[in-house]
């Protein structure tokens, strides 16, 4: 298995209890997945404030783990310098286009800012790459394609074969990240890339009008399951929602599949 060049998009996260900035938990899982897959072939990428110390956490993960590929002594992070309010999409897309990476991993959504989880989609659209969301494991990867296990609710997995280049977002079901160690964190190299004059960082216009407030945990609807066998109650307790319903359609041709999707979106009033 020749390990490909892997980039990991990392962002700075926010600790759920203290609110202190640090690693974003899903991004850390993405770094773990990349290191376990490609070792030394991993470079981290971030667009934002060059003074952000929390990014060092990810560099601290560049240490050896028995049985996994060697990661080298010094981790690398390319940092595209930009103000926090700017839109990172075009900068990142340009960087990825020129970097020649074939596989890009990242978390499902960032922990601060919009946290919409849209960035990977925007990047994939702009670059014309494939996108896989909610990856639990990468089973195989060569310079052409990858075999990926996608996480579905209730512990189900779907095996996908993807052609590279591809962007994959890593699910919480992926293996837990290794410890971040102080030595490699301090040793790691952060290469600050100033945007070229011509590139002109796009200011995120609509964002200027938003009001930010801390997220509140949404109350969960209790599922009271009366009676039934122990197994049923267990399953009900363990289910992650999903609303029941749904149909599994397979072996449809693309046209028919697209029609089904549109019909569904209309019924959900997403499309009018």
């Amino acid at each position, binding site marked *: 298995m020749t390990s490909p060049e892997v980039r990991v998009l990392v962002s700075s996260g926010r*600790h759920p*209890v*203290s609110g*202190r900035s*640090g690693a974003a938990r899903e991004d850390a899982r993405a770094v773990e997945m990349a290191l376990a897959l490609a070792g030394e072939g991993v470079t981290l990428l971030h667009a934002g404030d060059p003074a952000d110390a929390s990014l060092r956490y990810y560099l*601290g*993960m560049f*240490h*050896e*783990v028995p049985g996994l590929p060697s990661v080298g002594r010094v981790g690398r992070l390319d940092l595209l310098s930009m103000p926090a309010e700017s839109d990172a999409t075009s900068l990142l897309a340009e960087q990825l286009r020129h970097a020649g990476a074939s596989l890009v991993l990242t978390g499902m959504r960032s922990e601060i800012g919009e946290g919409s989880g849209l960035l990977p989609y925007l990047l994939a659209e702009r670059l014309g790459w494939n996108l896989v969301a909610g990856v639990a494991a990468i089973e195989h990867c060569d310079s052409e394609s990858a075999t990926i296990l996608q996480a579905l609710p209730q512990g189900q997995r779907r095996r996908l074969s993807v052609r590279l280049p591809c962007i994959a977002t890593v699910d919480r079901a992926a293996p837990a990240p*290794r*410890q*971040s*160690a*102080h*030595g*490699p964190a*301090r*040793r790691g190299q952060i290469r600050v890339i100033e945007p070229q004059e011509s590139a002109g960082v796009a200011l995120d216009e609509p964002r200027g009008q938003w009001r930010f407030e801390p997220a509140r945990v949404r109350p969960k609807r209790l599922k009271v399951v009366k009676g039934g066998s122990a197994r049923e109650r267990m399953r009900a307790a363990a289910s992650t929602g999903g609303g029941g319903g749904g149909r599994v359609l397979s072996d449809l041709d693309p046209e028919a599949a697209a029609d089904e999707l549109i019909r569904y979106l209309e019924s959900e009033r997403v499309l009018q």
Partner: protein
Amino acid sequence: MDQLLSVLIPAALIVGALGAWRRVRLWRQGRPAAVNLLQGMLRMPRRYLVDLHHVVARDRYIAHTHVATAGGFVAAMALAIVVHVLGVENVVMAGLLGLAGLTMLVGTLFVARRRLEPPARLSKGAWQRLPKSLMAFSLGMLLVSLPLGGLVPEGAASVLTTLVLGVLVGWGLLELVVGMGWGGPMKHAFAGAAHLAFHRRPERFSDVSGEGRHPGSRSTALLPLDLDSEQAPGSEQSMGVARPDEFGWQQLLGFDACVQCGRCEAACPAHAAGQPLNPKKLIQDMVIGMAGGSDAHYAGTPYTGQTTGEHGGAPGERIVPQLVEPETLWSCTTCRACVEECPMMIEHVDAIVDMRRFLTLEDGATPEKGAVALDNLIATDNPGGFDNASRLDWAADLELPRIRERPEGVDVLLWLGDGAFDMRNQRTLRSLVTVMRAAGVDFAVVGEEERDSGDLARRLGDEATFQQLARQNIATLSQYRFARIVTCDPHSFHVLGREYPDFGGHYRVLHHSGLLAELIDEQRLQLAPAASGSSLTWHDPCYLGRYNGEFEAPRRVLRALGMEVREMARSGHRSRCCGGGGGAALTDVPGKQRISDMRMGDARDTGAEVVAVGCPQCTAMLEGVVEPGPQVLDLAELVARALVVSEHNSSTLREPQEEVPA
């Protein structure tokens, strides 16, 4: 005969010296550190006679044996050189030589007796040969002195007896003089003397205990790791110790001084619990790493669950896992029982923490729960990952004064420690507050601004997080005025009092046992006499007792309560750890039994109804033991229970506004 000796002795000395030179080179592979050669050598004899013997004398049998044998040997050797090499032959010298030989012979017989059925902690192998070699030498010297002293006619020595004597003395010289330099069992004498002279913690010796880094202490504070210099740009130096040659040279010298007496092994709670740690074997492994080779020749008790001969090392190679498995290092509770017992003043805990530092800071290989605790410490300032602002939630109804609101200063700053997040320890804290209020102590708490002391991070090897927490706490404390800090957590007590000075924080820190003893001495507490016939036993926390020498204050408090204080089999400086120190409760290396169960067994054996504790960690560990067993109560709880409060007073306990103003 005389001619034979005049050749044999110098030859042995020269060969021995060559070996010693080689040994010195082995030590010098370690990281350099400057020492004063002459001063060290001058200090050595006193350190041997006073400090080392203080430890050896805990085993009277071997202490006397050692005085006779070693004293006899040194004297005999010196006299033999004078007589046989320098040729000063007269009756007086011969008599002295004979006397020295005889003394040594008597000592040797006792050495031999101990070796007949050696206790399990002693190493066998070459060590079983030693009494015979000692006997050969002493007997030889004694017999040789006889004709010189005129006790036997000169001519009586036939060729045969000369030959036999020559063999005896030659054998003795080979073991004692050549072996001393080249690494036989007698190596301990040479390395031990050098270790005493150049010990890395000179404060441990009575001659300099008042000077140096930790004046007046038992020198138990871990030594700081210079994070900045070790991380200088382009530096290939890693933090902590990955390879034997990354220890300081004095540490290597210390390992080499081990006599394999196994006292540390007998004292180690992790070893007794069947965890894969034996401090004696660990020190021998370090020697193997320093000299290169495998552990196949080690003739003592192995690590539980491992067989000897499968591990080996070299000075420039990784220690973990080729030489020592990581579980061995993570089993240690840093209780210091081994260091306390070691007659050679070897520093096991320093070595273990040095190796842990590498595993954590460079290898990211802290056992899982330990790594989680470290992440929590970084993100939330406490190992449990709790919201640090909730540190005072347990005291919501007590209206504790914050130090922030007392700019004029207070007498006592109550340091809560992380026990503040633990429901069990909150009861202790509430009791302590009750007692302090009853005695009218002028106190305040740091509250939300308090962070973990860094003890756990430091023992897990995360020096970076420790230093960060230390600096932040010192910065916080520097804003306030207080006469002293009181805490019911011995770990905070040790770290704030003994380890913060290296980072510029100098405080008077008291464990609550010290404060309670003081309040009782000053008769500021009215205590009801306990029910007659009730008894309890005191569990000495490692970080209070062995680390800081406080054995008396808690006992004074308990006696004042009027209960019978029974001592456990292992108490005082030999107290057995609860199993919770040094992050061991988190790393939780499996063994055959749990340390806390063994400790509760010790308590049960005394027949006491209560085991009194003075540490949140000990409380948690001992209360985690299945019933039946004595009740676990903190010193503060016991005192609070015995408080006699008049009606008027009891209301002040609940209404802080009526507190005695400062």
